[in-house]
Structures are given as structure tokens and as C-alpha cells.
């Protein structure tokens, strides 16, 4: 039974991820690097939920990440919530912002992407505005040193990454995921076949907002001092897009592979002069679009193998 085999594959993949990132800190000392790698796996999966399955490329994806970080920080600072609850609050706030931005889904293709980028810029300029210093500290950033806890936040990030991957597994194996793919290929035909187009897109959009919000919240907690510039940086969106595209959007394994390999590469060559890495991934994007629009996963699939 192929269905059961794919379920087993998915379970094995999730277990492998959990074990690798669970054991890694005791082997490799740079906890923040491992944390960021997991964060990017989760972000690439979150982006995959909306881009891989509905075809909408959210160019302002970082907006949800930043909202998550600030939502967590505000819940801790003003409501004095326990941190883990505050992380969830960050995710929920991102979903609410996603609902506000849902009308953007009426736009198609490049229009959606640009409008989403503009929306992320609006969020950034509002949060960073000096007029709001009493609430968000404006450009001066949030300092949450009292809740700093690298080990626990690492564990929470691990859970978030597994949840994000599990969501993609669900889309990959379920009827709902298939319906989403149908919508992205031909919304009119999908509609006549009985698929609820608007609801399907909205659910995918909010799921991906939730993931980015959780990741942003956990990131804010892990580093505990952050600025609007760092949690609304376009680079976060760009990395998530490149990692997902490289591995293959629409698959479970692609974004994981892309994030781990390219983020590792980024740390190997990128830290001292990030421009070299920027040059490489710029060229990589061009090459992928021209020669491999479905990512590395399509190379394996061409060989007749199935990629989860």
C-alpha cells in the first residue's frame, strides 16, 4: 500500500529531524546556529504551505515573523504571561494580521507578492515608528533579558519545526492538500469540481502565518534583545523563499534539505562577507527558475523516485 508507505516515510523523517536537532547541541557548540537552522527549516515549510500548495508567493512573509516576535514581547512585557503562552500569543497575533491581510488573496501572481511586501513594510514602519515608543519601543527594540533561556527556547523551536513539517506532511498526503494544488493549477475547474476555493486558500494562508508567527516569537525569546530592523528584515523572507525553491516547493523533504544545506553554506562562507553569499543565491535563483523551477526534488523525481 503506497499510502501507508508514505505515512511511514513521513514519520521516519519527523523522527530523524527530532533526533538530529535534539542531539546536535551536545555534539556541536554553536547553539544559536542550530537554532537558526531550525527556524529556517520551519520558515521554509511555512512558506511552502502557501507557495508550494497555492502558488501565492508571500514576498512579505517576514511581516508575520516580526509580528510574532513583537506579539510575544508585548504579552511578556505588558500582560506578564508565561513565556510559552506568549510564544503561542505571537503565533495567534500573526494569524489575526493574516486575517486582516486576507483580502490580498484576491490579487493574483506578482500583484499579490508586491502587495504583501508593501504590507510587511507597513508593519515595519508602524512598529518602528518613534511615536509608538511607549508600546513597541519604536526603533530602540525590545529587551527581554529577564526571560532569556537558550535551552528551553531551543526545545520550543524544535517543537515548532516539527509542527510546521507535520503540517506540510498533512497537506502532502491529504485530500485537502490535493484540493489546494487543484486550486493553484486552475481555480475555476477546482471550483466546479466542488472545491471551496476561497476557504482553501484562506486556511493555507493562515496556517503559514501561524507558523511564521511562532517562529518569530521563539526567535525573539531565544535572542531576547531585538530591533525592528532585525525581525522585519527582508532577508528573512528571501532566505525562506530561496531555501524552499532550492529543495523544491510542494514537497516535505525539499525545504528541509534546502534550509539545512544553504543555511549551513551561508554560515560557512557568508558571515564575514555576506555579499558573496548574496551573489551566490542570486545566481542560484536565476538558475533555478531557468532550469529547475521545481527545485532539486524534481531531479530525483525525474529518476523515477518519489520525493515525500
Amino acid at each position, binding site marked *: 500500500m503506497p499510502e501507508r508507505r508514505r505515512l511511514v516515510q513521513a514519520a521516519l523523517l519527523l523522527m530523524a529531524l527530532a533526533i538530529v536537532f535534539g542531539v546536535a547541541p551536545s555534539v556541536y557548540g554553536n547553539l544559536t546556529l542550530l537554532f537558526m537552522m531550525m527556524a529556517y527549516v520551519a520558515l521554509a515549510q511555512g512558506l511552502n504551505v502557501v507557495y508550494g500548495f497555492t502558488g501565492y508567493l508571500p514576498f512579505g512573509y517576514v511581516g508575520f515573523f516580526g509580528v510574532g516576535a513583537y506579539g510575544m514581547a508585548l504579552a511578556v512585557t505588558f500582560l506578564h504571561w508565561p513565556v510559552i503562552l506568549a510564544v503561542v500569543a505571537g503565533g495567534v497575533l500573526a494569524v489575526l494580521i493574516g486575517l486582516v491581510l486576507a483580502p490580498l488573496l*484576491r490579487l493574483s501572481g506578482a500583484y499579490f507578492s508586491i502587495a504583501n511586501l*508593501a504590507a510587511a513594510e507597513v508593519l515595519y514602519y508602524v512598529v518602528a515608528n518613534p511615536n509608538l515608543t511607549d508600546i513597541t519601543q519604536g526603533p530602540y527594540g525590545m529587551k527581554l533579558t529577564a526571560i532569556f533561556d537558550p535551552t528551553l527556547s531551543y526545545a520550543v523551536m524544535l517543537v515548532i519545526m516539527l509542527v510546521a513539517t507535520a503540517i506540510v506532511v498533512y497537506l502532502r498526503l491529504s485530500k485537502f492538500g490535493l484540493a489546494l494544488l487543484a486550486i493553484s493549477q486552475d481555480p475555476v475547474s477546482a471550483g466546479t469540481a466542488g472545491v471551496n476555493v476561497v476557504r482553501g486558500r484562506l486556511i493555507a494562508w493562515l496556517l503559514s502565518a501561524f507558523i511564521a508567527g511562532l517562529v518569530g516569537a521563539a526567535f525573539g525569546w531565544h535572542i531576547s534583545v531585538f530591533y525592528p530592523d532585525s525581525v522585519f528584515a527582508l532577508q528573512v523572507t*528571501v532566505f525562506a523563499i530561496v531555501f524552499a525553491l532550492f529543495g523544491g516547493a510542494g514537497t516535505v523533504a525539499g525545504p528541509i534539505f534546502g534550509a539545512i544545506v544553504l543555511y549551513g553554506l551561508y554560515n560557512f562562507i557568508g558571515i564575514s562577507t555576506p555579499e558573496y553569499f*548574496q*551573489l551566490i543565491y542570486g545566481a542560484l535563483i536565476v538558475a533555478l527558475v531557468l532550469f529547475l523551477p521545481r527545485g532539486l526534488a524534481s531531479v530525483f523525481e525525474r529518476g523515477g523516485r518519489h520525493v515525500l
Partner: protein
Amino acid sequence: MELLEYALIGGVLFGLYFALVGLGLNLIFGVMQIVNLAHGDLIMLGAFGAYWVFHLWGLSPMVGIPLEFLGFMLLGIPLYYLLVPRLLGTRDPEMLSFILFFGVSQMIEAAATLGFGSSQRSLPLATLGVGNVRILGQAFPKAWAVSAGVGVAAILALYVYFYRTRYGCATRAVMADRDEARTTGINVHWISAVALALGFALAGLAGVFAPYMIGSVNPSVGVNLTTISFAIVVIGSLGNPLGTIIGGLVYGIALMLMETYFPSWSTLVPYLLLILIMLVKPAGLLGHQVRRA
């Protein structure tokens, strides 16, 4: 009243310049339905060109314009043949071009940072003429008037090209229907390559005046400039050159009004305008078709 008048006239001057900022992006989209996401980075390169012309040779940035125009055209034509024909053959050229030119944009930004460093470069307003220009009793820096004038000249020149030259006529044919243009014997690829190159050159031309109108530049301003250009083009409506003028004016006046009355929120203008226009009238102010997925 005095203040409002200043904001409105200043807004028109800015608007005419911003029409030039969006013009290249719109031309390329109109001719080949390709979203040049590297538009802002080309503007940035144009600004650096102006900066070097002034700082290396002590010449007015205006002198460098023909050279820059030629340089950008020479960049555009090979790039067309390298990327676009393959792109147009894919399943979803519009979306894929968006991603592809984003890659190009990242490469330009990285190369510019490696080559020029990341510090802010600016040009003094006086390099485009000392003193003020009086328009309807209000005084404005000469540089603003020169930039607006070049904007108007570029738009007029594009119209002459479209309606008075053989190439322009062929370009309009390609805009109307690519396949039909091919059957009438037009070399569609060559015409499109020239259009892409012209779009690049217009971005470079807008860049020459960016240090005066937009502020100091460094290699990372490209993305913001692209978003601003998009706002302008979308306000007018994609693919319609006349719309770009309206988009530029709406944007310029809105920006000046915000800077006059709510200066701390004025950075939000292009983004809010973009979102509002897209949601209320997705096809732009001059568009007919409503884009819905």
C-alpha cells in the same frame, strides 16, 4: 494655505520625476509581461553613475546622462537574449520572471556592495544649479525643477518613439499581440530586446536624479526603490505609459502632503497607497480589466 500650496506644487514636481522612476518598469511589463524586480537596483546603479561622474571628473551629473543611457542599453540587450526567451516559454512567465529578476536584483546588490562599499553616497543639490526656482510665488530648489523637467522630457520622448518611429510602431504591435506581430514579419525578439534595454536605460536615467529627489543612496536601497516604482506603476495601471504619469503625480502629491502635515508617518505613503489601490481598483486608475484569480 501657503503651506498647502507649497506641498501641492512641490508634489507635482516630485510627481513628474516619479513618473520617470516608474516608466521603465511599466514599459518592460507592457511589452513582454515581465516583472523587472531589479528595477530599483538599476536606479541605484544609475545614481552611483551620477555620483562617480561628479566625484571623479568633477562634471555635472547631467553630462554623464548619454553615457549612462548607452551603458544601460548595452546591458539590457544581451540580458534579454540570455534570460527572456527561455522565460517566456515556461508555464507562468509573469510569476517566474518576478522570482528570476529578484535573483538578478540580489546579484546586482551584492556586486555593488563588493565594488562600492555600503556607505551612503549623496550629491549636493547645488550640482544641478544654484539657487531657487520660483513657481507661482513659491521657491523650490533648482534640482527639483530640473529633475521634473527631465521626467517630462523622457515621457515625451517615449511618446515620439512610440508614435513617430518604425521601431515604436512595431513595439506597439508587440504590446497588442505578440503572436500576431510575429506573423506580420516583425522581429519580435529584437523589438522586445530593445524595449527591455530602453526600460533599463530609463531606470538608469531616473537614477541620475535619485540622489537629489529620493535622498542618499547605497547598494541596499534597490528593494525600496522597486516597491516605490511598483506603487507608482500600479496606481496608474500596469502596461499603460500614460498611467505612469498619473501614478507619479498621485504618489508625489500624497508624499508631499504627508511630509508637510504628518512627517513622521510619511514613509508609509508608498506602501499604503499601493495596498489601497490594489484592493479598491486592482487594475489601476486607468485600467479596464479587473484582475481576479
